[in-house]
C-alpha cells in the first residue's frame, strides 16, 4: 500500500520533471533518478534533432492526398440512387421498375393535353402507339383509330383556339387515323361491324362539320387543306351508311375513294381510237354527302382494301397511235392544272392526282375537276379527254350538269379531241355520232387555240359552246 503511494508520488514527480523538460526549462543539476536522467537525454535529443521528411516524400504525400481528395469529391456528388445500395438486388430492380413506371405514367399524363409542336407531344403520340400495340382485334384497333381521329381534331381545334397555326401534318394525321380505322374495319364482321359503322358514321359526320367550319374560318392558304379532309370525311360518312358497308369484310371500305369506271362507249370508228376503260380513277366526293353521286357498288371495284386509296391505278393500255393527239393529251393535262390554279377546283386536284401523267392524266384530272366546281372543271375534263374515248367518261361528269344535257357532253369531248390533235379523221367519226352541229362551232374556235397549246382558252371556248348549246 505504501509502495503504491510512493510509486504514485514518483510518477507525479517524474511527470512534472518531464513537463519542465519538454517546455525547455533547465533541469536541476546532474543529480536525479535513472528515469529522470533518461528523460533529460530524451528531451535533449528531441529538441536538438528534429528529423523531417524528405522533400520528395512530402511532395509524393501531398500529390496522393490531393488526388484522393479529388476522387472523393467526385464520389461524393449526390447519386440519386444511392439510397438503393443498402437493399437486396431484387428490391433495387423492383424499385427502379416502379419508379420508371411512375415516371412514364407521369409523363404520359402530362403529355395527354399536349398539342402539336409542344415538347411533350411526341410522348403523347408514342403512348398512342403503345395503346395500339395492346389492341388484339381489328375491332378494337378500329375503335382506337376513331378515338385517335377525334383526338387529332380536338388538338386542331385547341390549337386554333389558342391562336396557333395548324400544320398540314395535323390534318394528315386525321386522314391517316380515319383511313386506318377503315382498314381495321375491313377485318370486322357481324354486330361489331355494324356498331363500328355507326360510330364511324357519327364520327365522320361530326368531324366533317367541324372541319368544314374550320375551313370556312381558315386562311385561304389553309382552306384547301381543310376542305380536302372534309371531303374525305364526307366520303367515309357515305360509305359508313351504305348498305354495302354492312355486308361484310369483303366489302371494300375504300370504295368511296375508288369509284368504278363506267363502261366505255366504244367509238364506232374503230379500235385504234378506243381508249382504255380499265382506268380506275379517284373521285373525291363533294362536300355535301350524296351517296347516290359518290358511292359505287363495291363489288364492281377490285381495288385492294389494304392499299391506301390515294393513288389511282392505271392500266398500260396503249394510247392511240396519233402523234399529235398524244401531245394534245399532255397539253390537256397541264392545262387542267393551270386552270385549276386559279379556282376552287385545285382542291380536288391537289388531293388526288394533280397534273401528273400523259394521256391518262386527263381522265383523272377531269374527275377531280368535277369534284370541285362546275363548268370550269368540266371543261377541263373535256379537254383532257382529248386523248380519245376518254371523253365519253368525262361526259358523264359534272360538265353536263344543269346546262345542256347529253349534247354538250359529247360535243365538248369530241370537239376537243378533234381540235387539239388535229386528227379530224379519227375523231370525226365520234363527233358525227352525236353532235354534228356542235362540232362545227367548236372546231372553229377551239382549233385555233389548241394549236397554240393554250388549254385555258380551250376551256373557255368549251364553256361558251356549252352555253350556246
Amino acid at each position, binding site marked *: 500500500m505504501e509502495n503504491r503511494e510512493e510509486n504514485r508520488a514518483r510518477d507525479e514527480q517524474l511527470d512534472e520533471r518531464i513537463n519542465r523538460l519538454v517546455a525547455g526549462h533547465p533541469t536541476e543539476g546532474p543529480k536525479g533518478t*535513472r*528515469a529522470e536522467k533518461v528523460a533529460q537525454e530524451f528531451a535533449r535529443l528531441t529538441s536538438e534533432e528534429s528529423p523531417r521528411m524528405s522533400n520528395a516524400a512530402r511532395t509524393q504525400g501531398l500529390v496522393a492526398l490531393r488526388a484522393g481528395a479529388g476522387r472523393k469529391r467526385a464520389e461524393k456528388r449526390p447519386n440519386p440512387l444511392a439510397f438503393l445500395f443498402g437493399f437486396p438486388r431484387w428490391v433495387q430492380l423492383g424499385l427502379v421498375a416502379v419508379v420508371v413506371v411512375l415516371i412514364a405514367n407521369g409523363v404520359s399524363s402530362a403529355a395527354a393535353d399536349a398539342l402539336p409542336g409542344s415538347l411533350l407531344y411526341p410522348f403523347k403520340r408514342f403512348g398512342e402507339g403503345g395503346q395500339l400495340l395492346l389492341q388484339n382485334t381489328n375491332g378494337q384497333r378500329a375503335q382506337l383509330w376513331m378515338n385517335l381521329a377525334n383526338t387529332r381534331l380536338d388538338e386542331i381545334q385547341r390549337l386554333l383556339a389558342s391562336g396557333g397555326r395548324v400544320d398540314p401534318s395535323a390534318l394528315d394525321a386525321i386522314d391517316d387515323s380515319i383511313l386506318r380505322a377503315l382498314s381495321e374495319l375491313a377485318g370486322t364482321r357481324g354486330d361489331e361491324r355494324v356498331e363500328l359503322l355507326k360510330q364511324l358514321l357519327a364520327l365522320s359526320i361530326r368531324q366533317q362539320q367541324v372541319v368544314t367550319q374550320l375551313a370556312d374560318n381558315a386562311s385561304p392558304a389553309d382552306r384547301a387543306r381543310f376542305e380536302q379532309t372534309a371531303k374525305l370525311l364526307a366520303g367515309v360518312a357515305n360509305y359508313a351508311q351504305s348498305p354495302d358497308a354492312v355486308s361484310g369484310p369483303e366489302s371494300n371500305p375504300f370504295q368511296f375513294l375508288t369509284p368504278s369506271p363506267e363502261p366505255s362507249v366504244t367509238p364506232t370508228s374503230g379500235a385504234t381510237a378506243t381508249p382504255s376503260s380499265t382506268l380506275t380513277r379517284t373521285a373525291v366526293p363533294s362536300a355535301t354527302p350524296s351517296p347516290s353521286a359518290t358511292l359505287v357498288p363495291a363489288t364492281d371495284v377490285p381495288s385492294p382494301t389494304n392499299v391506301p386509296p390515294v393513288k389511282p391505278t392505271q392500266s398500260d393500255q396503249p394510247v392511240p397511235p396519233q402523234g399529235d393527239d398524244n401531245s394534245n393529251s399532255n397539253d390537256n393535262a397541264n392545262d387542267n392544272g393551270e386552270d385549276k390554279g386559279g379556282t376552287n377546283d385545285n382542291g380536288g386536284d391537289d388531293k388526288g392526282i394533280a397534273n401528273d401523267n400523259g394521256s391518262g392524266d386527263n381522265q383523272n384530272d377531269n374527275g377531280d375537276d368535277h369534284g370541285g366546281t362546275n363548268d370550269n372543271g368540266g371543261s377541263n375534263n373535256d379537254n383532257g379527254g382529248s386523248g380519245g374515248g376518254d371523253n365519253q367518261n368525262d361526259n358523264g361528269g359534272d360538265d353536263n350538269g344543269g346546262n345542256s344535257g347529253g349534247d354538250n357532253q359529247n360535243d365538248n369531248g369530241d370537239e376537243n379531241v378533234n381540235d387539239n390533235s388535229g386528227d379530224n379523221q379519227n375523231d370525226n367519226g365520234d363527233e358525227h355520232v352525236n353532235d354534228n352541229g356542235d362540232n362545227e362551232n367548236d372546231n372553229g374556235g377551239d382549233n385555233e387555240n389548241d394549236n397554240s397549246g393554250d388549254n385555258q382558252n380551250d376551256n373557255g371556248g368549251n364553256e361558251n359552246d356549252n352555253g350556246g348549246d
Partner: protein
Amino acid sequence: MSNNAAMRSRALAPEIQADHLHQLLPPAEARELLKRAQGYEERALTRIYNLFSDRVFRFIYYRIQDRPRAEDLTNEVFVRMLENVDKFRPSGDDPSLVLSGWIFTIARNMIIDDYRRQKIRPAEPLPEFDDDLQDEQFDMDLHLTRADLQKALAQLTEEQQTVLLMRFEEGFTSAQVGKLMGKTEMAIKALQRRGLATMARLLEPEKGN
C-alpha cells in the same frame, strides 16, 4: 510531500502543455480544418498535411528506424485519414486534441499493422527490478545518441513507446495522452516512468552490458 508535488504538477501541467498543443493548432482552426476536410477541401487537407506530416514521420521513424519506410507509412497515414474523414465523428471538447489524437492514433495503428506485416513481435514488458522503483539519486553523466535512444526505445512495449514519444516528441500532457489512448492520466504517468526506468537500465553501461 508527494501529495504536494502531485498537486503542483496538476496545477502546472495544463498551462504549460496546453500552450504547446494549442500554439501548434488552435481549437478554432482545428474545428474548421476538420469540417473542411470532411468536405474533401484540398486546401484544408494540405494544411493538415503540412501541420502533421513531420510530427507523424518522427513518431513513426523513432519506432521503425527505417527512414524511407517511415516516410511511406507517414503518407499512408494521411491517405487513410482521407478515406475515413467523412465518417469521423469528433468527441470531446478540444478540437485540437481530437484532430491530433485521431491522426496519431492512425499512425499508431499503421505501425502495429506494419509490425504484423514484417512479422516483428512486439516487445514484452521487461521485468521490473526493485531498484528501478527506488528513488535513487545518480550522479551519472549520461550522454546518449539518437541511435542509443532508438535502440532502447525499441525494447519497450508499444504503449510505453507511444506514451514517451507523445510526451517528449509531441509535447502532449499525460492527461492528453491518456485521452488519446483511452487510459487514465495516472496510468500514463506510470507507463512513462516504467518506460524511462527500463530505458535507463538498458542504457546504463554497467548494467546494460
